[in-house]
């Protein structure tokens, strides 16, 4: 079970890597930011998986913090960099 969990985590990480490609290539900033959010979500998933796999319940706390902070960063992005004129503006 734990091995599966690890594998799953690795797979999630792999998908995250694909998301990173988006960040690098993304035509707009919003693309990049969304991809980053995706990575954040992936990270949370990996954390939860690891929490089980490694038997450490308090890793959930870490996931929780990641979620909260990711939300904050998203808002910061939106408020600070989102409505940049000249950008092709997804928002």
């Amino acid at each position: 079970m734990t091995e599966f969990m690890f594998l799953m985590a690795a797979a999630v990480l792999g998908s995250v890597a694909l998301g990173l490609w988006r960040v690098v290539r993304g035509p707009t900033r919003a693309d990049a930011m969304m991809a980053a959010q995706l990575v954040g979500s992936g990270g949370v998933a990996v954390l939860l998986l690891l929490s089980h796999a490694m038997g450490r319940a308090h890793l959930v706390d870490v996931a929780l913090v990641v979620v909260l902070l990711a939300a904050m960063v998203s808002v910061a992005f939106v408020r600070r960099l989102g409505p940049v004129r000249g950008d092709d503006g997804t928002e």
Partner: protein
Amino acid sequence: MSGDTLVLDLVLAGLLVFLAWRLLTLSDLFKATVLFIVFGVLLSLAWVRLNAPDVALAEAAIGAGVTGALVLDALRRLDARGPADEAQPLRLNLPRLVGALLVMGLGAFLLWSVLSLPPGWRGLSSETAAAMPRSGVVNPVTASLLNFRGYDTLLEIAVLMLAVLGVWTLNAEPMPPAEPAGPILDVLVKALLPPMVVVAGYLLWAGGHAPGGAFQGAAVLAAGGILLHLARPFNVANRGVVRLVIGFGFAVFLLVGLTLATLGGRFLELPERHAGILILMIETAAMISIALTFVVLFVGNARDNAGRDTS
């Protein structure tokens, strides 16, 4: 460890190196910043894998969260003031080539020297374990931070305070009021703020026995503050109350240490019986201060306590 965990570790490590590489070589600073934030998130995974959940928490809250927000904010300011794209991609020229070779050599040597470290290293884990019962807390990291090496932490809080002073010195002006927050943001803030405060309190409390503590809690609290600021920009002026709160954590920590010293112990020598409560007290004070510190670092300040414009 089995090969499966190795796959995860290898992928994670590879990703981290890749991210570091790309974020330094991408010509677009914004993307680099995003990658930096991602790097932070993945780093916290690495901490988890290295059995360092406290660090993972801090990394997630501070390394990725607060720092990310700060860099994003700075990027915006640079955008507003001048071209942020002065950053050129790192083309290789002779000095850089030399530098690269040197750094590679250094890295190789570093790696070699790390790998050639003698086995059988025990670190201070046994000493820590032996001292834990007297530390007043269960979480050895918290014990280290606030008891064994509490002095470091005291100075660290001083560094935080100094950063605020520096930012105040620089008269970092507030961002021009953004467009009024939309309803989505309002809802989001309303939804997120209470859990953030709760989580912060939880982390503070949990620090005694589980991963968590003042810094992580403060970061989450600060995230709430920053969120609020983003929705409804406010100015944390260089006002008496603000300064009191900023200095509060440090003052409490220092005064506790000094009081203990005057009571016959040594500086910061927490008596075994009261260590737990003292640590909690210090942590609480520190968290409040640090949270406000982070907020101030993000928000900046343009007004002094007399309310005069200082720019």
